[in-house]
């Protein structure tokens, strides 16, 4: 009961926050410095881990596929499966999850602490609304960064699959065959499809994180709760959106 009301309140306040932030778009040229800072921060926090984890995700996928195919024959299918699964699904998903865990949590922690220690009130009294300098530039930053991160995830996922397909003894696929197979089914539109999903996921993860920070009331304990809630809500929403978007984009 209480949880349901909390979720509804969080959705409502997120939407209000979104509208207010859009209202501050005209001040974007003045906030470009912040957009750049936030984009750099996002990249710095997520780039290495996205690269490493997507490599292993592609590798594991190739391994599992190779293992299944071993009985059925047709190892060359590994390229197709890894190609499509990574581009359309796994790369956007892993990037969004890592974003929620690393960036979402850090945004919520920072903004929640600013809220609790009245820095946000101080911003308001100085006629610099938090929506304008804390939220809107972050939303723009993630719109720039998400495609970059997702492309890195796609390429490294494919690469990880290729490495496994070549070097694991019971698969032993010629890399040329792997890549040729991958290219034969994976088209530009599949990659685009993944990028669109990632863009939406990233946007909402950051919006939720900012909102959760701004609605935090209380003290240090509540900052901790807010961070947890931001990450959990972010991941939950990503999976929900994933299903909806996958249906729509099919």
């Amino acid at each position, binding site marked *: 009961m209480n949880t349901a009301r909390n979720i509804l309140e969080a959705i409502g306040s997120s939407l209000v926050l979104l509208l207010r932030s859009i209202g501050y778009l005209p001040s974007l040229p003045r906030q470009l410095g912040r957009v750049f800072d936030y984009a750099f921060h996002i990249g710095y926090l997520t780039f290495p881990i996205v690269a490493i984890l997507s490599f292993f995700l592609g590798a594991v996928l190739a391994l599992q596929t190779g293992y299944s195919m071993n009985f059925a024959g047709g190892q060359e299918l590994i390229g197709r499966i890894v190609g499509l699964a990574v581009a359309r699904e796994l790369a956007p998903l892993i990037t969004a999850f890592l974003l929620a865990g690393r960036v979402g949590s850090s945004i919520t922690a920072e903004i929640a*602490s*600013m809220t609790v*220690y*009245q*820095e946000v*009130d*101080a911003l*308001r*009294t*100085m*006629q*610099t609304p938090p929506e304008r*300098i804390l939220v809107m530039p972050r939303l723009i930053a993630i719109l720039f960064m998400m495609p970059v991160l997702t492309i890195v995830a796609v390429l490294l996922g494919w690469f990880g699959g290729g490495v496994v397909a070549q070097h694991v003894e019971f698969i032993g696929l010629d890399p040329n065959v792997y890549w040729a197979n991958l290219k034969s089914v994976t088209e530009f539109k599949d990659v685009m499809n993944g990028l669109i999903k990632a863009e939406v996921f990233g946007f909402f993860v950051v919006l939720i994180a900012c909102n959760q920070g701004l609605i935090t009331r209380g003290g240090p304990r509540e900052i901790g709760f807010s961070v947890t809630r931001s990450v959990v809500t972010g991941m939950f929403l990503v999976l929900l959106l994933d299903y909806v978007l996958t249906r729509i984009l099919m």
Partner: protein
Amino acid sequence: MAETSTTPVGVEVKNLSKSFGQQVVIEDVSFDVKPGEIFVLMGPSGAGKSVLLRHLVNLEKPDAGQVLIDGKDAADPATHKAIRTALVFQAGALFNSMSVFDNLAFYPREHRLYNKSTLRDKVERVLKILHIEDTAKKLPAELSGGMRKRVAIARALVMEPQLLLYDEPTSELDPVTAANISEIIGTLKEEFSVTSIAVSHDRDLALGIADRVGLLMNGKLIALATPEELAASTDPQVAEFMSPKIDIQDPRFRKIS
């Protein structure tokens, strides 16, 4: 450039009421503050002083009544675009991720008020007035309580406000630092033309620098007078607040039935 091109503004609080849920925090409070005046709103903790102050900067909206600043509604964001109002928060509310200098420079930078060298001059001048030149490069976390208060006041002064609000500027300070802060607030009139409203339970501050004092208790304004009148008041509630006697033979907590 002229030293200060601002003019102080008057404030009218009209029948202001505010509740949080069931709890009535401010009940039908009215008073005026004249342009250029130093007004101190006193009252025990929990009386609703901070909440009242937050209404003046549109951080709270009234349930009933209104606050006018220079005749304009304080609940309208446009009022605060037209009139510069600064609030010195009780805990300072300094931006913890920025140095003291950047804290002070924040408002002028965001609003692109000055070029780089003018900005530096303005910030340094205010730092000097408050004797905190040495802190410019420090982070708020590295400052003592008294310095944080002064930095918070400095950050407000850089805004060159027409209306300057202080929430408990001398609380949690040792008596000498508190007196120092009171003197700073009391003499700002000479440097800046500003209307000052301070919320405090510090009698020395009120009696020392206020032009007029209001006394808020349980959300109601029970007295509005000059410091002299208030000190001489025979109203039992006022007298009790202004000079409580500590009597361990007959302690207050045992009288509550």
